[in-house]
């Protein structure tokens, strides 16, 4: 480990020193923050550009930018799509701090409107999609619940699991291979109600970025994607709120300044379903049971001085099924809790750091209570994380990011507690692991044509007697063929030390998080991708086409016939989860096409994916290769949003927003029973066809939505009516057979919904 740190520090020093020597004294650094004018919310990814020398940079996650420019009189352009562009001319003769507030172009709502932040062909990064948070609010939603994960599912390269499910499958990877980060904290189970809703309440979200490949070195620990979600900071100038009532849930958000002396703000957002309350009148008087989920997001921040800021944010959510009879009570609960304390420090005009202390916990629990007997089964994972990230804007050609992260995992794959009268039997199986990552990456701009982002991440993992140090080289590059056309290439090697054992691959809470051990090796992936990005700048339309190949090793699966209920205490025969799993490999390859209009009255996109995903395990399907359950040959999504808005006064407007989304996907690959026969002892058993050798019918549906915006005395009310699956397609959720007949079960043929929102 000492050698590892020495080598990395050596690389860092060489990079810093070589570039420092190259820098001349006739250059000065302009730095500062870019904020939204009305709320003072920092803007992520806003562009700072100097047209005369064709150099630029963008703001980081905290709205900070730094650019080193030659001594001259230059014009700096600050822009972000959805905001009025600002230009400043100044004579550069010393290091200068310039904080800029951008005014929203389209004051439809008071939210920070963040759309695509850069011109696609300008970025070295590929396989990255910025999710427009306002799209999340405009697109028709299932039961009126605005869900960022379901918008992500509409992007090429991303597939959903099954009807209504919020889980995402990125380029052939399973749901465990997505690093979902909420304000730096990893979220281990991002689903409510068995996956029908995600736990991200759209009201509190500021930005969402999806990386499908070409991962920057600052991200690690998962193979297939990074979904980086940042919560809003809260309005620093005025108090505002947002109340919404839907068919199955209600939510409320409140934000505002904390102190007038120091720039500071808070935001708190909560949501609760009331399915249990609505169904209660239909239940018998002696029955008491139901289901609900709730979640709560809260964040506060304070600017201690010009160089130091503190952020404290947290999420707490829980799903609960319960049934209370006279003698017996059952419950099934699961939930996440995360907390992040962040300290931003600006050392000087070039060096910016963020240090975070993070807590993340996921727990699933089944309980049974009787008079004399009670039993509880639970599983979960808890992380404590300390990380420190540094942004160093060395010069206009080099923007270096480096950092270190230490995670202390506590896994509880299974635990049982039984009580008979006063006697308690416990069988708690916990494992601890330490996962460390150290990284460096440099965004290099070479002669205005070539942009390269080389990076190296070195990860260290220790659990029991297992010690692993694995390097993860990364590379992204873009070559500008023309002003609005660039070709791109990326390569990334990823390691994942934690695994999700899943029977269903739909993100049920029964899925178990387990560590790498001597028997179960870390997962590893190697991905290359290449593509073209084209911008029709005047029309604000971007096109991209990418092809990728990904190979994954040491992925795990339950052995045939095994399930989570086999793990744990079986009489006195304790069965380890390691005995129930088998390791294998997977391949995914394909191409993705995306044409997207990001802003204006009419916006939307068309995405198409052609892909193949295959797997092979020595102990499954007789060792033969088979298609993954979520292998999808063709996947299409067409999304359109049209805004008819007028009568603007202050930040609110009257008008109508129309939206539609049509999706098509090849049917899921499933295993079907084909025959039955008797064994020698008379047991009737089933003969199954080839593993995932049968395709369900194709999936397609059309969703429509209409929003009526009305300006009120102190705010804006929005009525929204939407229809999920408008033409009532019976999309297969699962198949079953009965007496030789084949049936498909379709969950939601047509779901209208109505919701009411009031913003003030």
């Amino acid at each position, binding site marked *: 480990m000492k050698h590892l740190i020495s080598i990395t520090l050596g690389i860092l020093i060489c990079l810093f020193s070589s570039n420092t020597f190259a820098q001349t004294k006739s250059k000065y650094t302009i730095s500062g923050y870019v904020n939204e004018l009305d709320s003072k919310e920092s803007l992520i990814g806003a562009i700072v550009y100097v047209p005369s020398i064709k150099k630029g940079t963008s703001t980081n996650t905290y709205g900070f930018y730094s650019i080193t420019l030659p001594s001259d009189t230059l014009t700096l352009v600050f822009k972000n799509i959805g905001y009025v562009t600002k230009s400043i001319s100044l004579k550069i003769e010393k290091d200068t701090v310039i904080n800029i507030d951008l005014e929203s172009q389209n004051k439809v709502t008071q939210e920070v409107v963040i759309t695509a932040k850069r011109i696609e062909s300008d970025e070295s990064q590929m396989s990255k999609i910025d999710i427009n948070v306002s799209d999340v609010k405009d697109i028709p939603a299932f039961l009126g619940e605005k869900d960022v994960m379901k918008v992500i599912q509409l992007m090429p390269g991303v597939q959903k699991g099954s009807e209504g499910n919020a889980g995402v499958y990125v380029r052939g990877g399973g749901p465990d291979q997505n690093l979902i980060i909420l304000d730096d904290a990893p979220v281990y189970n991002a689903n409510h109600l068995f996956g029908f809703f995600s736990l991200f309440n759209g009201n509190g979200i500021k930005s969402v970025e999806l990386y499908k490949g070409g991962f920057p070195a600052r991200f690690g620990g998962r193979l297939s994607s990074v979904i980086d979600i940042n919560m809003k900071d809260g309005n620093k100038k005025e108090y505002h709120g947002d109340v919404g009532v839907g068919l199955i849930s209600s939510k409320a958000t409140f934000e505002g300044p904390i102190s007038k002396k120091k720039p500071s703000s808070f935001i708190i957002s909560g949501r609760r379903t009331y399915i249990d309350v609505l169904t209660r009148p239909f239940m018998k008087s002696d029955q008491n049971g139901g289901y609900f989920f709730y979640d709560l997001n809260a964040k506060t921040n304070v600017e201690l001085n010009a160089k130091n800021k503190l952020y404290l944010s947290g999420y707490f959510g829980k799903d609960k099924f319960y049934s209370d009879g006279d003698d017996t009570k059952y419950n099934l609960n699961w939930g996440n809790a995360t907390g992040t304390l962040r300290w931003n420090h600006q050392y000087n005009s070039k060096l910016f750091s963020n240090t975070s202390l993070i807590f993340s916990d996921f727990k699933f629990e089944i309980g049974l209570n009787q008079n004399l007997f009670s039993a509880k089964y639970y599983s979960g994972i808890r992380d404590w994380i300390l990380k420190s990230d540094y942004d160093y804007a060395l010069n206009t050609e080099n923007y270096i990011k480096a950092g270190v992260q230490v995670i202390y995992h506590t896994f509880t794959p299974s635990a049982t507690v039984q009580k008979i009268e006063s006697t308690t039997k416990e069988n708690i199986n916990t494992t601890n692991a330490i996962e460390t990552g150290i990284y460096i990456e440099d965004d290099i701009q070479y002669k205005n044509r070539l942009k390269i982002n080389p990076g190296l991440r070195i990860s260290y993992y220790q659990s029991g007697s297992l010690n692993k140090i694995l390097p993860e080289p990364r590379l992204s590059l873009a070559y500008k063929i023309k002003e609005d056309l660039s070709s791109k290439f990326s390569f990334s090697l990823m390691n994942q030390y934690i695994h999700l054992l899943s*029977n269903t691959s739909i993100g049920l809470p029964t899925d178990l998080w387990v560590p790498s051990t001597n028997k179960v090796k870390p997962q590893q992936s190697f991905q290359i991708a290449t593509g073209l990005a084209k911008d029709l700048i005047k029309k604000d339309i971007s096109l991209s086409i990418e092809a990728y190949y990904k190979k994954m090793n040491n992925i795990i699966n339950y052995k045939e016939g095994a*399930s989570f209920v086999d793990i744990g205490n079986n009489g006195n025969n304790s069965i380890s989860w390691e005995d129930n799993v088998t390791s294998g490999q997977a391949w995914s390859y394909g191409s993705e096409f995306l044409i997207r209009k990001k802003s204006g009255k009419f916006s939307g996109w068309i995405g198409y994916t052609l892909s193949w995903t295959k797997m092979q395990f020595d102990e499954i399907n007789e060792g033969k290769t088979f298609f993954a359950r979520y292998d999808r040959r063709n996947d299409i999504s067409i999304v359109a949003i049209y805004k008819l808005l007028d009568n603007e006064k202050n930040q609110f407007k009257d008008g109508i927003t129309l939206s539609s989304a049509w999706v098509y996907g090849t049917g899921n690959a499933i295993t079907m029973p084909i025959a039955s026969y*008797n064994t020698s002892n008379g047991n009737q*058993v089933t003969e199954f*066809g080839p593993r995932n050798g049968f395709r369900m019918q194709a999936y397609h549906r059309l969703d429509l939505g209409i929003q009526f915006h009305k300006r009120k005395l102190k705010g804006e009310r929005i009525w929204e009516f939407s229809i999920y699956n408008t033409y009532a397609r019976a999309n297969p959720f699962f198949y079953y057979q009965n007496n*030789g007949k084949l*049936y498909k079960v379709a969950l939601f043929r047509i*779901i209208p919904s109505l919701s009411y929102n009031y913003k003030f």
Partner: protein
Amino acid sequence: MKTIFNKIIVASLILVAICSCEVEIPVPNELATNSKLVLYSEIKANSDTVFFMMNRSVPIFNKNKNINTDIVLKEVKIINDDVTYNFKSNEINSYSINYFNDKDFRYYVVLNSAKIEEGKTYTLEVTTDKNEVISGTTTIPNYVPTSARLILDSTQNDDPYGSNSYYEYFYQLEFQDKANEKNYYAVGFTADFDQFEYNQELTNDLNNDGQKIYSQYSRLSYGSGYPISNYLFTIKAVDEHYYKHYKILINYAGENPFSEPQNLYSNVTGGLGCVYSSNLKPVTIIR
């Protein structure tokens, strides 16, 4: 307004329930399979008789509802390294076990003055009157432990829900493996409570070649109110096919949606089933 809103909510929820549906769909051709022959046989060391069971699989989605499940045997061959025993239809004996399915056909053939030999490889090949051929090959285990140490513990507990006590038995067997060969064992525990109880546990020497083998520390409990009166431990040497077949069968989950679908292990050609072998000898139990 409130009433209207409540009505809208209730109507929408009812609509959701109505909208979920199941629909019968045409069976795709790829699921419409044909019936297959099934053959099971446990060939026992030092026996002069080979028993086997046959039936036909019943396709779930076969459009022909009149599948003939009858089996008429034309010929049976027992083939080992040195000799082939041929049995014509009139030399094949059938028998029945009345509590098993009447579609299962049970047969035996008797080797004239010969016995199944330890260490030899046998193929059981069956031909039907329709000239369908199904066969499986197994090698008879030649090492069987003949002594074992028993760890046995029992507790008497009060049943909180009934008047009877219940007894729990914890047991483990320790026996010696033979080095330099792959060995598989089936450890059996037959207990005479007020009804017959039988536990079978499978183990092997893959990580303990030539060393002591320990069966799992297992538990058997019964709430009859009185203790065990009689029990019997067996250690049966089995071949790899027996081990693989029963390993799956013991934990067979069928169409349980929470388990990965799994076919039973098969080593036969020309159909489904398994031909495996065993070697059982008296074992001296030391406590």
